[in-house]
């Protein structure tokens, strides 16, 4: 079935791109292999604040996203972390065109999708799909799983002709580790983790190249989170997807990402590879954020340095001048008030070969390790994992299904089921 998927991806993609190139060949910067698949430049979303009823006038703007730049390469996972209100979800919505940017460009294979509309937009959208945060509200309770996952084909019938849809949906269910026989069930018959799998299957339906996942596991229980994170990891390798993974949980982002961007008040303040950001952060906000994450190890309690930030994040309607982090920064000086720091490799690291040489928007960037190096803390060893971690479904070529992870009949509690029944 994988071969079949790849084939259809190939033909579908080709059809899409010829359509595009015919339409606006001149507007497109040529895309060659190895270029970023997605280039985001100076992206901004401002929500106007108005006053008056009859004669509305704008008295300001909530600058939710205020100049974001990043590249996404084919097959990689870019993690975006930040606290609530930093604009990370707004970025996600703009990437899938649920929100129109106020300014800036989102170039998919060299073409600015922020300015597209109509048929051209539809063709591009097929390649950028989204997985939402809350598996309870993002699935229509009155549609069956088959209808939910198959709905994208109504909009893009070229991907799957009518007769083959049911089979396609069942294949997708199989890929995300659900029993294909559950195609006629409704969302309430599934647990949270299973619902998130349905959301992921819907995201995969159109063979997209890019998946934007906005907090895909934060609504799930700890033991179920790991199942879904592993699934995303496996799907990425299997379908060579590019991920934009948005989350507030720094540990999960490190686990899944190749590169990580840290957002604060509508901007990326630091971006680099996972080791650069986590082991060699140079921006004070990143350092504070990392030091605040509790590490599941009581021995770290005493020798870990904690940077406790004071105060709250300023309102995005009233962003401080200069560096937007300066109101909470312990290093802030006059220069920070006057001059906006640019997201670039800081001057002091520009000529040295160190992991600290990555983009950081701070005038006084310096490296500071706040996460203890691996191995320094004691971890219960992954002993005798061999027998337990490999579930039947994870073997290559086998079916992907987890033994206990089957929907029960409509149970009372949300998503709970008798595991005795599930095992039977």
């Amino acid at each position, binding site marked *: 079935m994988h071969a079949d998927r790849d084939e259809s991806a190939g033909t579908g993609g080709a059809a899409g791109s010829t359509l595009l190139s015919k339409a606006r060949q001149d507007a497109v910067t040529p895309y060659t292999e190895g270029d970023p698949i997605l280039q985001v430049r100076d992206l901004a979303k401002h929500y106007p604040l108005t006053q008056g009823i009859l004669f509305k006038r704008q008295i300001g703007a909530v600058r939710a996203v205020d100049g974001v730049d990043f590249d996404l390469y084919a097959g990689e996972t870019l993690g975006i972390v930040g606290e609530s209100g930093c604009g990370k979800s707004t970025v996600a919505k703009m990437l899938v065109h649920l929100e129109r940017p106020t300014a800036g460009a989102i170039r998919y294979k060299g073409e600015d999708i922020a300015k597209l509309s109509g048929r051209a937009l539809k063709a591009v959208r097929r390649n950028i799909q989204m997985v939402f945060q809350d598996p309870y509200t993002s699935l229509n309770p009155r549609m069956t799983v088959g209808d939910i996952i198959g709905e994208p084909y109504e909009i893009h019938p070229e991907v799957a002709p009518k007769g083959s849809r049911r089979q396609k949906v069942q294949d997708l269910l199989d890929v995300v580790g659900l029993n294909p026989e559950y195609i006629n069930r409704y969302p309430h018959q599934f647990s949270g983790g299973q619902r998130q799998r349905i959301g992921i299957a819907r995201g995969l339906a159109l063979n997209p190249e890019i998946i934007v996942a906005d907090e895909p596991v934060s609504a799930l229980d700890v033991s179920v989170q790991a199942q879904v994170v592993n699934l995303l990891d496996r799907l990425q390798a299997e379908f060579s997807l590019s991920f934009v993974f948005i989350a507030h949980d720094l*540990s999960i982002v490190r686990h899944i990402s190749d590169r990580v961007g840290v957002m604060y008040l509508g901007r990326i303040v630091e971006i680099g590879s996972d080791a650069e950001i986590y082991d060699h952060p140079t921006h004070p906000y990143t350092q504070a954020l990392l030091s605040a994450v509790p590490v599941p190890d009581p021995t770290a*309690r005493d020798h870990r340095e*904690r940077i406790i930030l004071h105060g709250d994040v300023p309102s995005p309607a009233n962003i401080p001048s200069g560096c937007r982090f300066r109101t909470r920064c312990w290093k802030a000086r006059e220069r920070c008030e006057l001059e906006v720091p640019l997201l670039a490799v800081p001057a002091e690291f520009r000529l040295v070969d160190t992991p600290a040489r990555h983009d950081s928007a701070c005038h006084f960037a310096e490296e500071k390790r706040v996460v203890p190096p*691996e191995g320094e803390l004691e*971890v219960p060893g992954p002993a005798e994992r061999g027998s337990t971690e490999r579930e039947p479904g994870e073997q290559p070529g086998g079916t992907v299904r987890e033994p*206990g992870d089957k929907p029960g009949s409509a149970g009372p*509690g949300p998503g709970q089921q008798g*595991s005795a029944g599930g*095992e039977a």
Partner: protein
Amino acid sequence: MLLEVRDLHVEFHTREGVAKAVNGVNYSVAEGETLAVLGESGSGKSVTAQAIMGILDMPPGKIAGGEILFKDQDLLKLKPEERRRIRGQEMAMIFQDALSSLNPVLTVGQQLGEMFVVHRGMSRKDARTKAVELMDRVRIPAAKERVGQYPHQFSGGMRQRIMIAMAMALEPSLIIADEPTTALDVTVQAQVMELLAELQRELNTGLILITHDLGVVADVADKIAVMYAGRIVETAPVHDIYKAPAHPYTKGLLQSIPRLDQKGRELYAIKGLPPNLTRIPPGCAFNPRCPMARDVCRSDVPPLYEVDERRRSACHFWKETLDAR
């Protein structure tokens, strides 16, 4: 011992049958001690807390057995008015969602002051002064001006501080914090936990911290009780449990969380789902998900075996689990 829960059973009578939310829970907290109760949703950790506080919805809830000894007095045998006197004054609770636990149409000053009016018989004016003092104490800037504001005018972290202030107001000897920082961002979570720890030290309060976050637990707890399907599966001092878990469920949880200091390999995932509480599997409730399960696990409910004098594990094979690390 400040608080001792003995063999507590709580049931919920629903249309689908009787959901056994708490099945024989035992734990204790001493003065100044922090007990973390760890568990996933549906493990019974919050229901136990509600039973201790006496705020369980009955019906559908029903305390089917057990004792809750608070300062050597069984709370379950007290009259409602006696319990009301203890609640707030002797023990207080901090909830997860501060916005929905605060009254939106009363100012925070009125809500903080109410504690003093009701329990201490103070005048409104004195109560307001006390409220300002409390807000200062939990480091809310400009407390004097903000005492007249409504909950929605505060940020999430500030609201949680007000909840803490309210819980600490009458200097109770026991505080139950149910997921106090789950809704907060990490930097704010760090502020709030630090404040809570500081006040606890100052007042020598016993603290029951209910959470699913293994990181927070490692940071503040003295001892841990891990709950699964309404039972305690393991209790131990905090260092022991992280070093060498004696129950496969605890072990699975510890292995399944991604870590800040490590780049990911594939995560260990506990297979399956927690059981439906109306149909808890026979024997050990964890057996359908357990990599070590054998026949005896499917037939015999494991008692809390004594691992050492401060540690208990409800696993027939706790020794193997401990050794297999």
